[in-house]
């Protein structure tokens, strides 16, 4: 507990600009031996994952059904991490004051972009092509490979540009106040930022433009991925809501992971005063909204397939939700179990927990729900990608048989999965050695904009709203 200048009790927040700078630039970026060890382990796991991916490629690209668990791993990690920066971008557009200490941690996840780009190459090569299939690209010979690669590259570049612009003032702060190797790196990256009014104005509009571009690129990348890597492979599946479902669930699981990350930073990162109850409560509310969206977007598609009773759509329901109706033993329908795991955790369990205000209004509550959602959405990606990548049939207007050759992931696939996650973590931890996990410039701005004044019989927070 610290005390603000007019004697009002506020949890945690540093009172002055100097305290803030001191804490974020000096104290929070110490690289201890434990951190050093963690970085090395992550690097090792990343290398193992990359090797496994190469070994898989050497094993052959002809049979796409062999790549189903790689697809699950890739699209799960992609959905998990690439949506997180939206928490920073979207809330900045919404001008939510409480997001200020948390935006940086969210935006750093844009650094996962290059990892996603590298691990995309094998799955792109394994794509069986569009011949005889429905697709968005008509009969274009280069589709889906060329447009999807362009889309992903653009997305990654926008993300990198965004995070660079976002950390620029902090790099300058590290240059001016920091020490050691990170100061040198920051100095070379900060590139003449001295914080003139003109620079700040440009900074603001650049963040606006890049943020809007990031949101559009996020939606479009999810759209082409969901279409080209799941829907296209399934004869008779035409479902325009599915790309939107894919994007929204990406946001939900991203937010889930982000809340868990905040919990970790609070617990082990020594940043408890920045990731306060207020943030958890507000993110909990967002998580509730996104959990409802999970169901809404799922239901919009499902109800129509179920109600329309068209034979080819019944097959899609069987493939993605209920399993082959010809199998009487429910336990023997793998599709059903994946579906139950997905909706049971991502929506039902998560919703039943997060709907209660006492759960939302706690630190542990949203974090637990975040874990539930992360696991639930793993089942969801499993349900989508394993089932669609198991289909051998090419083309036609109807899926004739529900694949039974699901199988289990091998060692290589598991290594790739762990490798991808480690690579993302490695990127973010490395970046956090240069810039702090909490944005210095945003929190300093927050200190400027909020004032506590007497109001009625007590005190009230007053938030300035500059245009």
């Amino acid at each position, binding site marked *: 507990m610290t005390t603000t200048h007019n004697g009002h009790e506020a949890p945690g927040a540093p009172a002055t600009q100097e305290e803030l700078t001191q804490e974020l630039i000096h104290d929070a970026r110490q690289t201890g031996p434990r951190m050093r060890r963690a970085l090395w382990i992550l690097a090792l796991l990343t290398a193992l994952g990359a090797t496994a991916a190469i070994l898989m490629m050497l094993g052959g690209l002809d049979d796409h059904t062999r790549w189903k668990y790689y697809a699950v791993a890739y699209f799960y990690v992609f959905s998990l991490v690439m949506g997180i920066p939206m928490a920073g971008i979207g809330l900045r557009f919404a001008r939510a004051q409480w997001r200020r200490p948390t935006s940086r941690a969210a935006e750093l996840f844009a650094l996962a972009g290059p990892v996603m780009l590298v691990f995309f190459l094998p799955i792109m090569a394994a794509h069986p092509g569009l011949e005889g299939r429905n697709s968005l690209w008509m009969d274009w010979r280069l589709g889906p490979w060329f447009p999807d690669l362009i889309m992903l590259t653009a997305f990654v570049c926008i993300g990198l540009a965004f995070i660079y612009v976002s950390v620029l003032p902090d790099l300058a702060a590290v240059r001016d106040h920091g020490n050691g190797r990170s100061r040198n790196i920051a100095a070379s990256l900060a590139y003449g930022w001295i914080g003139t009014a003109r620079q700040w104005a440009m900074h603001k509009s650049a963040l606006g433009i890049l943020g809007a571009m990031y949101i559009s690129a996020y939606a479009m990348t999810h759209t082409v991925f969901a279409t080209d890597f799941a829907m296209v492979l399934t004869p008779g599946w035409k479902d325009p809501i599915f790309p939107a479902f894919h994007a929204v669930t990406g946001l939900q699981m991203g937010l889930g992971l982000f809340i868990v990350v905040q919990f970790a930073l609070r617990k082990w990162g020594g940043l408890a005063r920045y990731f306060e109850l207020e943030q958890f409560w507000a993110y909990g509310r967002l998580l509730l909204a996104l959990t409802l969206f999970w169901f809404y977007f799922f239901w919009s598609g499902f109800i129509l397939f179920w*109600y329309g*009773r*068209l034979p*080819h759509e*019944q097959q899609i329901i069987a493939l993605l939700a209920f399993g082959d109706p010809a199998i009487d033993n429910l336990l023997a329908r793998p599709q059903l179990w994946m579906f139950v795991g997905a909706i049971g955790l991502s929506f039902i369990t998560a919703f039943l927990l997060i709907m209660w205000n006492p759960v939302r209004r706690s630190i542990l509550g949203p974090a637990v729900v975040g874990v539930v959602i992360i696991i639930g959405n793993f089942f969801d990606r499993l349900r989508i990608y394993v089932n669609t990548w198991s289909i051998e049939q090419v083309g036609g207007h*109807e899926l004739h048989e529900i694949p039974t050759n699901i199988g289990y992931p091998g060692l290589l696939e598991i290594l790739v999965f762990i490798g991808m996650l480690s690579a993302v973590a490695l990127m973010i931890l490395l970046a956090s050695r240069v810039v702090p996990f909490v944005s210095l410039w945003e929190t300093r701005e927050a200190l400027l904009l909020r004032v506590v004044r007497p109001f009625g019989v007590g005190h009230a927070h007053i938030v300035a709203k500059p245009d």
Partner: protein
Amino acid sequence: MTMSDYKWGMAVDIDACTGCQACVIACAAENNLPINLERDFTERRAIAWIRIERYWEGEYPNVHAYFLPVLCQHCGNAPCEPVCPVYATYHNPAGLNVQVYNRCVGTRYCANNCPYHARFFNYRRPTWPETFHNYLNPDVTVRERGIMEKCTFCIQRINAAVRIAKRTGTDAPDHFMTACEQACPTDALTFGNLNDPNSRVSQLFADESRAYTLQEAIGTEPNIRYLKGVATAKAGSDEMAAAAH
């Protein structure tokens, strides 16, 4: 025999159809259809429970006309049924789609959802000239303005035949016809009980090489099958679509 021992169906032999429209007239006379004036056709509001669709194939002078008699398909899995808010259309135990005129409020949702365009709306109050008043069939309800109607498979004839069969204790009453079938000069239409494996219609249904259903991909499971003697008879519905364009 009870009602559920019957499952009424019809086979339509496209190869035999000459497009003479006798069935259309017979149906109108039997079922008290309003008289379609020129205005009704230009406004596209004519009511004809059975119609002959005509499709052209080939370029002049090598033109071939197809005739496709379309009537309510009495689907086993009918799209029109669940969308009616007032249960005005429902499935009866003998496999017929039944329209209950008194319940209908005229939302026309069933007509939108019918893939066969087999449902008709009474935009006007049906009227007949004075001289026609004794001509109307007393067994068939005259419909009001503002409700839906469609082919009933001549349910008045079915009911009469079933009643007679019950009274006399005979088996399946396979000896009656719908009006359209009765009028068809080339025997293109064959109506009967599908639950009786010996009926003519059952045997025609069983003809794997020729029988297909209209727009099979929608999964409506119609009680009407079309017969067409071409090598790819099974893919008939696709072929009709191709011919249509």
